[in-house]
């Protein structure tokens, strides 16, 4: 028999970026919020010994313990899905702050094209441009409508950057100037400029200078220590929920965080949620937390899983294309890159920061003509200086053996003489790419795991090839002596790290028939449930997702406040 607690205004499931932002905004306006976090508490002091590649990058110190819960995966519906037993293609954050702690800080705004992708593609190229099973749709919101929320997120996080010459209209400049550049980045800038492209400093969540945000939170500047991705920041210089929004929510006295609280069900009565049921993982006790409003802000897979397990919303059916929960799972196309080796130059690539880089959008979105191309959208192209740590970075020119004398000699020789230019390709949704519940494999509580059905398509193969060709042009102009040749994208392989940009499953839109939430992330089928995060993306863009997740979270917070006042489905 579950212990039943007194009702609260809002219960927030998962306290990362989205949960933290919503908690801060709602508590500032007087609502009582409880944040349920399955992991433990985290603070900056935890990162005293963080410069440890083995522990954090390769043994996944900050990531979800897969022995308790993972996902299953198959390339298509004819195959048996099998569990992701070890980490590979993506890594799942855990504990307070979630993936917002181990991210790199690369902070973009999705393009105006992204939000109206279907209408704009048809308008410019005709309906035939969209392949039969590609399920792109407009997001039910425009860039201009979302702009104030991007602005809010960037000011809260103190994003360091400069205007993107090809970027959309901004209401204000970045709150802090761009980060320092490096000789490698300058080489990219010069080469790109020679090629008549439009490079700019990558917008960064690693602060270029000390900054106090509108909430009064002060943070120190980044020291370029080169331990961001998969690590927490020992300076608090990298924007993360633990050093920004969570303390703001706590200061109100209206936010209670319960760690070690793993939510298993959203409880409902009729078409409304009544609260959640969770397990106190330290005691195993089942606890019911009633609430007027339920906000789902866990990672993509758990947001979807919770709804499917709780019987909220219409599950997606890939055969008919009807239903919405689990629909439009998308990812990222990362292999359109170029690696160059330099015989006469060495670079300080041991130093860096997660978001330190130079980027260009000439081949992103619909910034270039696709008339003669066999794909839509594109990707950002960038040189990144995140810090090349020695276990994970032993690139040798193609043809070098992978072990033995020659391998060692070349891996040592090129350790500081290798640069890469990477394309981050957008990922379009397809009818047969989706999330549902696995029929066989269970988590530690006996609940089914989420099952991913996904593979790369011709669209992705063409896009990877195109981005690779563009990256090679830039790398040549940068003067590399040796450039690795292109490798086909191949099938989606869950064993090699690509990107932790999993998206979709509870997508937003203008119509209840084709989307799960409206543009306030409010569920069409359960008006007091808000599902916030990259789950809301109908497709994934050629950018890192966090900036857009942050904007959607601010938008959702506003929606929750008006729902609290007026009730009903928000228009």
């Amino acid at each position, binding site marked *: 028999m579950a212990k039943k607690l007194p009702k609260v205004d809002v219960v927030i499931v998962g306290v990362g970026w989205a949960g933290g932002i919503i908690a801060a905004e709602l508590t500032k306006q007087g609502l009582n919020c409880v944040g349920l976090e399955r992991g433990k508490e985290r603070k*900056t002091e935890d990162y005293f010994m963080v410069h440890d*590649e083995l522990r954090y990058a390769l043994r996944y110190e900050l990531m979800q313990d897969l022995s308790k819960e993972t996902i299953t995966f198959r390339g298509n519906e004819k195959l048996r899905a099998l569990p992701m*037993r070890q980490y590979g293609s993506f890594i799942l954050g855990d504990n307070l702050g979630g993936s917002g702690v181990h991210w790199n800080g690369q902070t973009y705004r999705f393009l105006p094209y992204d939000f109206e992708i279907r209408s704009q593609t048809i308008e410019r190229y005709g309906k035939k441009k969209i392949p039969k099973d590609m399920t792109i749709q407009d997001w039910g919101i425009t860039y201009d409508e979302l702009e104030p929320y991007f602005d809010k997120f960037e000011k809260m996080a103190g994003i360091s950057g400069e205007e993107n010459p090809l970027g959309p209209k901004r209401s204000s400049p970045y709150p802090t100037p761009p980060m320092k550049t490096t000789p490698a980045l300058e080489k990219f800038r010069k080469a790109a400029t020679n090629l008549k492209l439009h490079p700019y400093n990558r917008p960064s969540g690693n602060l270029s200078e000390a900054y106090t945000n509108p909430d009064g939170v002060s943070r*120190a*500047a980044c020291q*370029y220590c080169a331990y961001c991705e998969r690590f927490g920041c020992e300076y608090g210089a990298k924007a993360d929920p633990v050093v920004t929004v969570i*303390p703001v929510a706590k200061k109100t006295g209206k936010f209670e965080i319960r760690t070690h609280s793993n939510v298993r069900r959203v409880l409902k009565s009729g078409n409304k949620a009544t609260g959640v049921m969770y397990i106190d993982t330290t005691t195993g006790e089942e606890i019911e937390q009633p609430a007027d409003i339920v906000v789902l802000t866990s990672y993509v897979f758990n947001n979807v899983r919770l709804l499917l397990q709780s019987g909220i919303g219409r599950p997606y059916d890939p055969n008919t294309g009807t239903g919405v929960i689990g629909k439009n799972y998308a990812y990222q196309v990362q292999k359109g890159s170029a690696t160059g080796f330099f015989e006469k130059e060495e670079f300080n690539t041991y130093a860096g920061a997660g978001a330190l880089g130079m980027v260009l959008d000439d081949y992103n979105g619909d910034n270039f003509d696709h008339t003669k191309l066999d794909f839509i959208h594109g990707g950002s192209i960038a040189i990144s200086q995140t810090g090349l740590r020695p276990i994970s970075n032993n690139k040798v020119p193609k043809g070098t053996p992978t*072990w033995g004398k020659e391998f060692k000699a070349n891996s040592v020789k090129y350790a500081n003489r290798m640069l890469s230019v990477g394309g981050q390709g957008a990922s379009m949704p397809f009818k047969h790419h989706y999330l549902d519940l696995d029929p066989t494999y269970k988590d530690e509580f006996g609940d089914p795991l989420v099952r991913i059905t996904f593979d790369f398509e011709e669209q992705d193969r063409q896009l990877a090839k195109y981005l690779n060709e563009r990256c090679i042009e830039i790398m040549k102009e940068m003067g590399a002596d040796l450039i690795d040749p292109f490798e086909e994208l191949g099938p989606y392989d869950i064993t090699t790290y690509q990107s932790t940009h999993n998206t979709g499953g509870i997508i937003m839109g203008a119509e209840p028939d084709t989307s799960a939430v409206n543009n306030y992330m409010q569920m069409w089928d359960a008006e007091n449930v808000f599902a916030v995060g990259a789950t809301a993306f109908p497709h994934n863009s050629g950018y890192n997702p966090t900036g857009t997740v942050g904007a959607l979270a601010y938008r959702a917070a506003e929606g929750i406040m008006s729902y609290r006042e007026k009730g009903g489905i928000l228009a």
Partner: protein
Amino acid sequence: MADNANQQEKNESLTRRRFLKNSGIAIGGLAVGGALGSLIPFKDKTTNEDVKTEQHVENYNLALMFFTQQQFRMVEAATERIFPADDNGPGAKDLGVAYFIDHQLSGDWGFNAREYMHPPFFKGEKVQGYQGRLRRREIFDIGLRELQNHSLTKFEKNFIDLDEEQQIDVLTDFAEDKVQLTTISPSGFFNMLRTATLEGAYSDPLYSGNRNMDGWKMRNYPGSQMAYTDVIDQEFKVIAPKSLKDHLGH
């Protein structure tokens, strides 16, 4: 070189002090200062005296937690073939890689403790990743036994008694799946050994490999530095490495 390193160290201390001074202003407002406070005492402390005392301390970590002596010697020899000593610097053996692997196998990694090891087990597509029921320590037991068997079959000698070329030959058969095994994948075992070799060569010396930070020195990797603000926008520069041990106050 040594002078360079000393100079470098001085510069770094300056940077650190300057940083701490500058960032003092940033710790106001809400409490997000974090690890910073606890960092203040750390370096500057290593006096010549400390260094001298340390030289006489026996390293009691050089003992085995998992391997038998024979397994240990095989791993020493095999990893040395994967990452041999050369003009650049020491190979796997002198870096302590076999100790690293031994110690790793005795903990979480060896038991696949944080991985999903629940049944049912089915053979899957390559892109679905490892689907076996064996844990790493079991794979090592089997893999090393088979390495020995293959050496005896092919060259009628123990693996450790083979000459370098023969050892490379045997390892190549594993790497290219030219050995018939029923329980484990030969290349799967080989790749695990290769990955563990690089981990042992380049992880913090805390884990018993990368002895004396020689793995890092070989490729001019500075290890764990607190800040690169002074070099980030500069041309390439060699910085004497630091390990996590340097971060602990005494």
